[in-house]
Structure formats: structure tokens, C-alpha cells
């Protein structure tokens, strides 16, 4: 049994009102303890060291130290793989000073568990639902024959020119997803662009090379190219060897694609996906073989390199919009319009926030009136809880 020992100096007094409960909104294996500071705890770690947390599987069993928090703390999350969900545990919080320690009463039993729903993310759910409803509304409108417009995207208009140019020069076309994986949104957008490029290649009987970094993307790309060739009436053009897996190593992939470009001399190169440090190496090699290059990535760090080295670059979300532009189907157009309306709402919200905040500052400064400032601060605080 734990004992209190007081030798000299500051008397260690136990923390009051210790409570233990299952940590909310988590995946289990975590118990949270809260308490009121010991009267001896002034927040000064020199006088009062802190609190040591002990856990046991029974109220009278052996307690084991599971953590320590410094003076001033009133909370401890016992998140540990040792904790089994549904099993009951008991806790003691020990005040520790230089001269001794004092234990709280035993609290418990308490058991941990996983939650299916994170109640702290209700506001995110609300935004996601709002966006989803807008998208669904516009998809239905597009299905009903409503006309939805997509603005011109320069890089995409150049696809036909690029394929035509390669055909005239008798050169193949190279398409790369970069270091994308199949579970990433830009890969899905890139697959739509690949479909369009493959269709054009099918129409012009031009060879299309698609070297891969990820085997799953390779599988999806092979299906996409095969389908595009079939739909243009040229299934015979499909050759699996033109859709090879190179390696899942970043610079190994870059070296392989560079070598492929030097030997095959493509007339057009498409960089559509996610790229890292290899982007400039690839784009410079494409430039050196005289290929027309159309890039598209959401990687903010790599866009500048593509802008510098390529003929056309789809910047960030332009890549997503490309899917709608190339395949203006109701689902695509509706989702694009829904996203745009969300952006418009964000702009209006920011504008209202800026006006309110500015008026608040000015009224406080010139008329000593704090009402608007307080309202603005409350809105900011509310939004920061998201």
C-alpha cells in the first residue's frame, strides 16, 4: 500500500476531486484523469515537483506508475497500448514535493472504449454536408438538362495539338503520374486526363508510353488506356509493355523515365500527378528532347519548376477541373459547380469577417465602442474551434 512520507520542507498535500473517465472521441485504449491542484501547488516546479499517476487493475492491488506531469497540470491522458478496452482500472494521483508525497483517494473503476463518432468534428460534418448538398443539387440540375459552364483551361486545349504534333513527327507520347498513389484525388483527376490523351492517341494511332511508380496506379492506368483505345475502335494499339512498372523508388523512377525519354524521344510529354524533387529533372529532360510538355500538379513546391520548364501547367485545382472540361458529364459538372459555389460562400464569409473586424477596430479606436470587436472575436474564436 502506498504511504505518505513527509520528511522536511513543503508538506505534500493531495490533489482534490480527482476524476477518471474514458477519453472521449478517440479510438479507445485511453483514460483521462482530471483533478484540482493540490493546495501546495503554486505552479512553481522548484517548490512542488508535480503529480505522478498510478494505475492498478484492482482497488487494493499493486499500483504501477504510468506517467508524471509537472506542477500546475490538472490533466493526464493515460493513452497506452497496455490498456484494454472494456477492462476496469483504478487510479491514484500522487502529489510530489522535494520532501515527500501524498496520494489522492483511489478513483475508479473506469474502462476505456472506442467512439464511432467524434463529436468535436460536428462543425466539419456540417460543412462537408453543405458542400455535398450543393454538389448533389447541381448534379441533379445537370442531369435535368441545366446548362453548366466550364471556363477555358489553356493546357487542356493543347492536348490535341500535342498529340497531333507527335504524330506528325512520328514520335510516341509519354505520360507520367509522378509519384502518385491510387488513393489520392489528383490520381483520379490524372486518370481522366490520361483517358482523353489515350483517346487522342487512339484516333491518331500514336504510341502512348506510361511508366509507373505505383503498381495500383499502373493497373488503373492500363484499364483506362485499354478502354480509351477500345472506344476509339483501336483495341489493337494497346500494348501492356508500353505501360510498365519501373520502380517504387523516387530517383530510380526519375532515372528510368529520363532514360526512356532519351531513347524514345517523345514528341509530347504529360506530367500529371504528384511530384517531388524529381520534377525539374524530368521536365528538363523532356525539354532537352524537344517535347511539348503539359504539366499538372497540386504539389505547391513543384509547380514553379513546371511553370519554368514546361509549355503549359495546370495549377493545383485546375487539374481537378480538367476532368470536367475533358468529360463534361453531369456528375463532373455538378460537382464543379458545387465546389465553385462553396468558394463563393467562403469569399462572402471572409468579406463579411473583414468588414466586421475593420469596423470593430475603428469603432473601438475612434469611438471607444467594443461591441463590434467583441462580436468579431467571438466569430474568430468559434471558427477556431473547428
Amino acid at each position, binding site marked *: 500500500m502506498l504511504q505518505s512520507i513527509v520528511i522536511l520542507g513543503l508538506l505534500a498535500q493531495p490533489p482534490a476531486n480527482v476524476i477518471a473517465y474514458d477519453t472521449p472521441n478517440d479510438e479507445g485504449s485511453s483514460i483521462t484523469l482530471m483533478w484540482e491542484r493540490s493546495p501546495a501547488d503554486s505552479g512553481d516546479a522548484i517548490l512542488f515537483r508535480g503529480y505522478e499517476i498510478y494505475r492498478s487493475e484492482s482497488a487494493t492491488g499493486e499500483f504501477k506508475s504510468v506517467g508524471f506531469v509537472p506542477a500546475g497540470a490538472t490533466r493526464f491522458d493515460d493513452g497506452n497500448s497496455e490498456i484494454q478496452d472494456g477492462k476496469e482500472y483504478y487510479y491514484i494521483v500522487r502529489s510530489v514535493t522535494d520532501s515527500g508525497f501524498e496520494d489522492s483517494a483511489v478513483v475508479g473503476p473506469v474502462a476505456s472504449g472506442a467512439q464511432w463518432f467524434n463529436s468535436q468534428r460536428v462543425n*466539419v460534418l456540417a*460543412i*462537408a454536408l453543405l458542400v*455535398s448538398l450543393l454538389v448533389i443539387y447541381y448534379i441533379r440540375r445537370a442531369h435535368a438538362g441545366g446548362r453548366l*459552364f*466550364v*471556363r477555358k*483551361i489553356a493546357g487542356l486545349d493543347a492536348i490535341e495539338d500535342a498529340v497531333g504534333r507527335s504524330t506528325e513527327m512520328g514520335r510516341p507520347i509519354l505520360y507520367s503520374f509522378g509519384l502518385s498513389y*491510387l*488513393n*489520392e*484525388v489528383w*490520381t*483520379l483527376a490524372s486518370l481522366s486526363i490520361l483517358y482523353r490523351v489515350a483517346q487522342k492517341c487512339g484516333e491518331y494511332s500514336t504510341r502512348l508510353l506510361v511508366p509507373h511508380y505505383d503498381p*495500383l496506379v499502373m*493497373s488503373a492506368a492500363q*484499364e483506362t488506356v485499354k478502354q480509351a483505345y477500345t472506344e476509339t475502335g483501336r483495341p489493337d494499339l494497346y500494348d501492356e509493355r508500353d505501360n510498365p512498372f519501373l*520502380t*517504387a*523508388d523516387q*530517383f*530510380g*523512377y526519375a*532515372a*528510368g523515365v*529520363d*532514360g526512356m525519354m532519351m531513347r524514345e524521344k517523345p514528341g509530347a510529354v504529360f506530367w500529371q500527378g504528384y511530384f517531388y*524533387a524529381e520534377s525539374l529533372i524530368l521536365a528538363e529532360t523532356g525539354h532537352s528532347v524537344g517535347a511539348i510538355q503539359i504539366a499538372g500538379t497540386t504539389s*505547391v513546391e513543384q*509547380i*514553379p*519548376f513546371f*511553370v519554368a520548364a514546361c509549355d503549359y501547367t495546370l495549377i*493545383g*485545382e*485546375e487539374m481537378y*477541373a480538367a476532368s*470536367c472540361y475533358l468529360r463534361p458529364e453531369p456528375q463532373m459538372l455538378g460537382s*464543379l*459547380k458545387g465546389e*465553385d459555389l462553396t*468558394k*463563393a460562400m*467562403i*469569399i462572402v*464569409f*471572409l*468579406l463579411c*469577417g*473583414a468588414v466586421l*473586424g*475593420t469596423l470593430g*477596430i*475603428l469603432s473601438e*479606436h475612434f469611438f471607444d465602442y467594443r461591441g463590434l470587436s467583441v462580436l*468579431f472575436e467571438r466569430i*474568430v474564436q468559434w*471558427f*477556431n474551434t*473547428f
Partner: protein
Amino acid sequence: MNLLGTWIAAGLTVAILSFLYRDNPFYKFAEHLFVGVSAGYWVIYIWAFDVKPMLIDEFLRQAGVEKWLLIIPAVFGVMMLMRWVPRTAWISRWPISFTVGIAAGLALTAQVQGYIIPQIQATLLPLVSIGKTTSETIARSFNNIMIFVGVVCALLFFYFSREHKGALKVGSKVGIIFLMIGFGASFGYTVMARISLLIGRLTFLLQVFGLR
């Protein structure tokens, strides 16, 4: 043995750098070696760090429902391998569709939580900020105005469902200027990082060849 390894690394580095001159047999050798070795390495890596610990070992360790849930990814994995047989290749479309569907669903909350909300939080600013001195007030206000105008105009640039005419055209033009300034800064920053990588590699070569 270490010395031999160092000389091989130096030789392969020179072979890869020879690409700067033109494609040549040394580069081809280094490239094929690199691609082959790295592909083989990743096969072992995926087995050792994904398939074995996350599927096989977990299956042996777990009990109850969690054990049998692991059958689902295992079956999906086998379905992917059906691609090898032309007659059953269509079966691989099922796990691909599942992966794509899950990705799209997860991306929605990730985008809202990870990008949209933090961006709005950082842009909710008053356009005027009073400082201790006039110059501080001007500087802070200018900063806030730049952030607000930059974010709003960049959003206008990415407005696709309306033709960019009139005010929208002006706004999107300002937006692309902000974006390009940002890209320029990023370009310079990254080039500096790349130069330091080059210096590191050249230092290695100089040390190997006894010039440093």
C-alpha cells in the same frame, strides 16, 4: 569492403552525372542497375513492412472479428493478382474501384479539415490593425490587406464555372500574380536546397578521389 563500396558509389555517381553530357552506356548501366535494385528492394520492403506485419502476423495475433476482418484485404490482394491471367483480369477492377471510392470519400473530410478551414482561419482578419506607432499600424494593416486580397483573388482564379470577364477577370488576374509571386519565392528557396544537395555530392566525390 567499405572502400570498395565507396568506390562503387563514386563510380555510379559519375555515371549518373554523365547524363548531363548525353545519354551514354555508363548512364544506361547505372540507370538499369538503379531501377532494378530499387524495384527489388521495394518488393522486399513491402513484404517485410506491409504484408507480413500488417496482414500475416496480425492474422496470427488477432482473435475474434478483428482476425477475420483481415480476410477482406487479403482477398482484395488476391483479386489484384488476377491481372496476370487475361481471362480473369476483369476481377482486379473490383479492388481498384474500392480503393478509388475510399480515396474520394476520405479526401472530402481531409480537404475540409486540412486545407479549407485552416486557410479561412488564417484569413479572418480585420483590414486595419492598430499598432503602437503609425509605421507599425501601416505595416500591420498592409500585411492584413495583402493576405485578404491574395486569398480572395486566388480563389477567384480557381472559379471555373463562370467565364472570366469584368470584375472576375480583374480579380483572377490579381490572383495569378499573387500565385506567381508565391511560386517564385518557392522556386528560389528550393533551388537553394538543391544546390546544397549538389555541394554534398561533389564533396563526397572530392573526398573519394583524394582532392579534399
